[in-house]
Each structure stands twice: as structure tokens, then as C-alpha cells.
């Protein structure tokens, strides 16, 4: 008994000892924070030459607009600035920027020499009093100042978020004019933010579902030029197109490049049945990937090219399936209520974006590649056709409004479901496809 009591007391004393005394430094765990745009200041870049003043202002505005458009940043406007940056090489007066709560500071300088434009910039972590990365300089033609601004913004975004940017990219889409019952469609290409729109086809025939090649130099699309849907390929630089897949008595549609750019996977309708096929671009040989009486369409490769996600109604209604890239057994990944379609694998490889129709509403959503953690990001009368930004952080899609006067327009949304915003296009837009970052 005595021994037992002694042991009990000894145990209790030993147990309580660490609570009373602190061993080493104070340890704190933070598990909750805030979610808000990071405030930054971008004073107008210093013009190194008098001729560069106007372009310095424009360029700074585009950089700021790119960052604000992500929803992750908030600009502290110039009229709130205490400090000024009149010399790109002068030391930063951090106190001036701390006072206005600017967490990041972007300084830059612009020089114009004939047609040559030079942009230098630095990014500063104000509260740490340190530079994020090191200074960088871009040289290009004065005509391409917008691209220069996008490249600067990509670098700033990358240094603060630790992820690749997506501003120096383009989007190919179907430009739509006219009422719903007489809609004219043509392919168009633009900067990611809706600037510099150019038309790639005329509106003499219906065009659908353009898809960029991995290098961004070619576009696959479906055209009704022959009266039936067939796949065409278009060289973006030369604006020249040719028919890629056209067999007698068949319809081909929903094409998409493999990540290596050597193979195109698409749907082929033959004798009333639609299956997936792969076309080797070098040899022209066609391989059948699925063989089912149901409709298989909308294929999309995983970033490593090993798998394909597609939609099929083999279970009775439209659902998503994943199979090996060379065909084989498909595994169903969508099990929620409603119908799922147009799946697109994220460039990061971790998520699959899709269109979902349920209870008379359309949604753009994302799920893990095994079908788990489904999240719906949008809801409207008609949302469809998601496409991923090159960094896998933002999704662009088409939204059509209800009624005879309904209009289709492009929108983008962050994968967190925040920052839903329209993408300005001259006319209506649908079927967007986001290019990779430009070289």
C-alpha cells in the first residue's frame, strides 16, 4: 500500500512538472488567419527617357490591373502614397509605405529608344524591409508594351504567391453575334483580359469548341463547313486552317491535344454510336479508345498524358469517367446528383473542372481526380465550358442569360469560388480555351 501511494504521488508530481515549467522558447500555434486581398503600392514607373512617360503610366496601370483582377491583391492608389519613387536605384523608404499599410511595393523604370522598350522593376516586402527576388529587366518592341506589362505582373504575382502567373497568355473563343435563333459564330483570339481581339474565321459556318495546342501555336476546332461537324486545325500565326479528320458518313467533334502535342483525342460518331478515338498526327493513324453503345465525348488528358477524363452516359445519364490514355477500363468518378459534362484536367494535375446540371441550374465545379471533394463554384441559368488558366488557379467559362434576348459572355472565377468577374469581349463569347504562358 505504501509503495502504491508513493508511486501514485511520484507519477502525479512528474506529470505536473512540465505544466508548471516552460521548457525552451514559448511555443504558439496559429490555426486561424484572414482571407483578404494583399494591399500593394505601385507608384508609376520612372520614365528613364522623356518619351517613355506615357508608356510608363500605361504599363504601370496594366500591371496593377492584372494583380487586382486576381482578387488576391488590392492597390493602394497614388493619392494615398506618402513616399514617392523618382529614382529607380534610390533606397526604399520603408516607413513611408508601412504607414499606408502597403505590404508589397513594386518599383520600376521604363525607357524607350526608337522602337525598343526597356522595362526594369523590383518587388519589395515592405514589412520585412527586403526585396522579393531580384531586379529584372525586359526588352521588347514598344508595340508590345501590353505583353511587357503582363510579364512584369506575372513575375510580381509569382514572387508574392509562389506560383506561376497567367497574365501573359491568350484565350481563343467563339465570338457570337445576333439573336439566339440566328446566331453568327466565328473564332476569335484575345489577351487573357479581353484586349487585342482578333478574328480567326468568318461567320459563314458554325464553329465550336476551339482548343489550343500545348505550345499555343495551333488551335483545334469543330466546323460545320461541310454540313456535318468535322475537326479542323488552324495555325494561329498564319491564320491558315485545314481539315484534320473527315471520314465519309461520320461526324467528328470535341478534339483535344495530348500534352506532348503529338496526339489528338476526339469523339467520332459512326452508325449512331459515338466513341473516343486517338489520332496520331505524324502517321495519321486512328486508334479506338472506347467501345460502348453509349455516347463517349469531351475527352481531356491529365498533364502527364497518362490518363483521360471524359463524359459518358453509359450508366444511364451523363457522368465523368477516367481511363488510361491508350484506352482500357474506365473508372467512374462523379457520383453526385445531376449530370456532369465537359471535364477538363487542371494543369496542376490535382483537380478536374466540369459543368454540372442539377435542378434546372448549371454550375461550374471542381473535384479531385478521384472524384472526391466536389465543390461548385458558380450557379446560373447556363454556365458551361470551363478552361483552366496556365497556373491552374483560375477557371474561365461561358455564361448565357435566359430568354430570347439572352447573351452568352465569358467569365472567370478563382478556384476558391471567389472573384467571379466578366471578361470583356466586343461581342458575346462562348467555348473559351486558355493558352499556356507565351514564350
Amino acid at each position, binding site marked *: 500500500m505504501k509503495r502504491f501511494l508513493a508511486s501514485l*504521488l511520484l507519477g502525479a508530481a512528474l506529470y505536473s512538472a512540465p505544466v508548471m515549467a516552460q521548457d*525552451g*522558447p514559448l511555443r504558439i500555434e*496559429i490555426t486561424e488567419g484572414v482571407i483578404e486581398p494583399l494591399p500593394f503600392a505601385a507608384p508609376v514607373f520612372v520614365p528613364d527617357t522623356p518619351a517613355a512617360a506615357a508608356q510608363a503610366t500605361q504599363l504601370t496601370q496594366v500591371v496593377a490591373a492584372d494583380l487586382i483582377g486576381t482578387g488576391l491583391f488590392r492597390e493602394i492608389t497614388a493619392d494615398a502614397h506618402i513616399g514617392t519613387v523618382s529614382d529607380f536605384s534610390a533606397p526604399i523608404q520603408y516607413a513611408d509605405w508601412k504607414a499606408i499599410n502597403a505590404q508589397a511595393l513594386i518599383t520600376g523604370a521604363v525607357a524607350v529608344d526608337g522602337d525598343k522598350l526597356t522595362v526594369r522593376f523590383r518587388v519589395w516586402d515592405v514589412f520585412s524591409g527586403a526585396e522579393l527576388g531580384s531586379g529584372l529587366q525586359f526588352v521588347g518592341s514598344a508595340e508590345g508594351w501590353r505583353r511587357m506589362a503582363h510579364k512584369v505582373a506575372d513575375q510580381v504575382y509569382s514572387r508574392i504567391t509562389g*506560383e506561376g502567373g497567367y497574365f501573359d497568355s491568350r484565350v481563343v473563343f467563339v465570338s457570337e453575334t445576333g439573336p439566339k435563333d440566328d446566331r453568327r459564330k466565328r473564332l476569335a483570339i484575345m489577351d487573357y483580359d479581353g484586349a487585342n481581339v482578333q478574328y480567326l474565321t468568318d461567320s459563314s459556318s458554325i464553329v465550336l469548341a476551339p482548343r489550343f495546342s500545348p505550345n499555343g501555336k495551333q488551335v483545334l476546332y469543330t466546323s460545320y463547313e461541310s454540313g456535318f461537324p468535322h475537326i479542323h486545325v488552324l495555325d494561329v500565326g498564319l491564320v491558315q486552317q485545314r481539315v484534320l479528320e473527315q471520314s465519309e458518313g461520320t461526324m467528328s467533334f470535341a478534339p483535344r491535344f495530348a500534352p506532348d502535342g503529338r496526339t489528338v483525342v476526339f469523339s467520332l460518331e459512326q452508325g449512331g454510336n459515338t466513341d473516343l478515338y486517338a489520332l496520331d498526327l505524324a502517321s495519321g493513324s486512328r486508334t479506338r479508345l472506347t467501345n460502348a453503345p453509349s455516347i463517349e465525348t469531351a475527352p481531356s488528358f491529365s498533364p502527364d498524358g497518362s490518363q483521360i477524363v471524359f463524359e459518358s452516359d453509359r450508366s444511364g445519364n451523363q457522368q465523368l469517367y477516367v481511363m488510361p490514355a491508350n484506352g482500357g477500363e474506365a473508372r467512374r468518378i462523379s457520383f453526385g446528383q445531376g449530370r456532369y459534362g465537359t471535364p477538363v484536367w487542371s494543369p496542376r494535375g490535382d483537380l478536374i473542372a466540369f459543368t454540372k446540371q442539377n435542378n434546372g441550374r448549371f454550375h461550374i465545379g471542381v473535384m479531385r481526380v478521384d472524384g472526391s471533394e466536389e*465543390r461548385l463554384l458558380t450557379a446560373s441559368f447556363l454556365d458551361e465550358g470551363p478552361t483552366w488558366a496556365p497556373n491552374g*488557379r483560375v477557371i474561365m467559362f461561358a455564361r448565357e442569360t435566359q430568354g430570347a434576348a439572352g447573351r452568352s459572355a465569358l467569365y472567370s472565377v478563382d478556384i476558391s*469560388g471567389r472573384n467571379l468577374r466578366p471578361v470583356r469581349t466586343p461581342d458575346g463569347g462562348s467555348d473559351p480555351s486558355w493558352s499556356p504562358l507565351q514564350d
Partner: protein
Amino acid sequence: MQTGTKISGIAHLGLIAVAIFGGAFRSEPLPFEVHEVSVISSEDFAALSVPRQPPQIADEPAAPEPPEPLAETPKPIARPEPEPVQAEPEPVPEPAEPDDAVVPEPTATPEIDRVAPEPVVTPPEDARPDVIEQAEVTPDEGAETPQEAQEATAPEQATDRIVTEAVETARLAPLRSPRPPRSRPTPPAPTPVAEPAPEAEPAPDTSTASAVDAAVAAALAGPATEPDAPVGPPLSAGEKDALRVAVSQCWNVDVGGKSSQVVVTVAMSLDQSGKVIGNSVRLLGSEGGNEQSVQTAFQAARRAILRCQKTGYELPADKYAQWRDIEMTFNPERMRIK
């Protein structure tokens, strides 16, 4: 015919007879409602259907008897005159929203674009958030020149949760106050007094008391104190919570980014005013993510520590030895998009 067959045949016949005559196949009648009625003749029915004569109404109602006069006439209650209603000022036309803010489909609950630690309700229509935040300014007393009072900028509408367009949930009140929990006043720290070491080993257990004393003495003598371990009483839970809340208010988590998959532990040293000493914030360790994600997570943690220190974290000065060196772990698991 065999006997068994006969018995079986007779038994079956008997069973069938019992079933037929015993009512085994008789089904219960379906339930139905019964209403009792009485049969009346057509004359009686006609008599019942004749419209009733209207009641006789007197030409003039009898005048009511006047009430007996009260002993005291009550005084009329004086009612306050209503104040003249001031004419409402003419509504100021709202400035046109910029095109960029066009929302395609207005929803019942307005979409709140800003997420902040504390939710802010929609400001009144006539108090729109300004681009530049304006603090409330009241005129100085005794100022010679007339000064106008300036109203503070209306707080920007904000929510503390991400609500996607697809999943709009009911707005809930915060479950707990975002204010740092108030800690109790700290009693003056007692001067640490070294425990006297037991003079001699206790004698072999001869009684319960000696055994207990021996155990306590052994526990107190216990493991040798590390030379770097701070002395004095540790911070209370409330004091730790206050520091935790102070830093978390400045920890901005990019919930959609790869850095939200990373847990970082940073170390720092504070001076006696509660401010971070020089560049003492350093990365101690991390879990998850690649090198770039870790660096991004570390930068966000460092910004949080440095930004929210202002004039120094409020920590009990008498326990400086306890919080001079701090290791802080930033774990975004709860904030990740699920």
C-alpha cells in the same frame, strides 16, 4: 393404398374443410363510414326550405338611458402636439456603377466580395465606402477657425467566410468574439526560490509518511533544469491566447494557393517592449509543399508577425524571460478549401 397415404389424405381433407367452413378465406369487409340519415316527406322538406321571415325591426331604436353623471368630471388628458414632420431631403442620385462591377444576375443576397476577420454589415445606402479611408474628425475645442466635423468612412461590407455563388448559406453570427480574450491580472512574480534539496536520503520505508515524503522529494529534485530554460512562472493560457489572436489577425492565408498546404514553424526573439528584434524571424521547419511553397508560407508568416507587432506585442513584462524567444507554428489546415 398405404396407411400413411390414407392418413395424409384424410388430414388434408379435414384441413381444407376447416379452411372453407371455418372462414379462413373469408376476408374482412373493407372499412367504410356510416352516416345516419332520417327520411322526411317532400312537404316537410318544402317547409324547411321556405325562407325565414325577417325579424321585426322597430322603427326607431329606444333611446339609451343617459349614464348617471359622475361625481367628478375627469379632466381631459393633454395629448402632446405632434411635431411637424421635416421634409425628407431629396434623394441624391447614386453615381453610376462602373462597368467592371456589373453583376450578371442579381441574387437575393448580395454577394460580398470582401473577406475580413470581422464581418461588416451592408453600410446604409447614403454612406458608400470611400476609396480613401477617412477617420472621424471632430472639431478641436477652442479652435479659432471654424472647423467642420468629418464623418468616418463607412466600413466596407465584408464577410468572414468564403461563400461561393453556388453555395450561399445563411449568414451566421460569429461563434466567438474576435477580440483577444482578456487575461486575468498577473500577480507579481514571486522571486524564484531554489527548492532546498533534501538533506539526506530517506530511510527505508518504515511508515507511509516517509514513503510519501520520499516520493515528493524525488519528484521535486527530478530532472536537472536545463541551463537555457527560462525561469519564473510561465505565461497563462489567456496571455498565450492574446498573442495568438494578435498574430492571427495579420496572417493572410491564400486559401487557393499551394502555400495553404504548408505548415511552417518560425522562430523569433522579442525585446522587452514586445517588438521583434532585428531580423530574428527565421524559418525553423516546415511540413508539406515544395521549396517555393514553403518560402511563400514563411513570407506570409513573417509579414503577419511584423505587421501586427505595431509598437510591440502586449505581453507581461515580468515574464519577459518566458517570451523572449518564441517559436510560432502557422498551420492553415482549418482554412484550406474543403
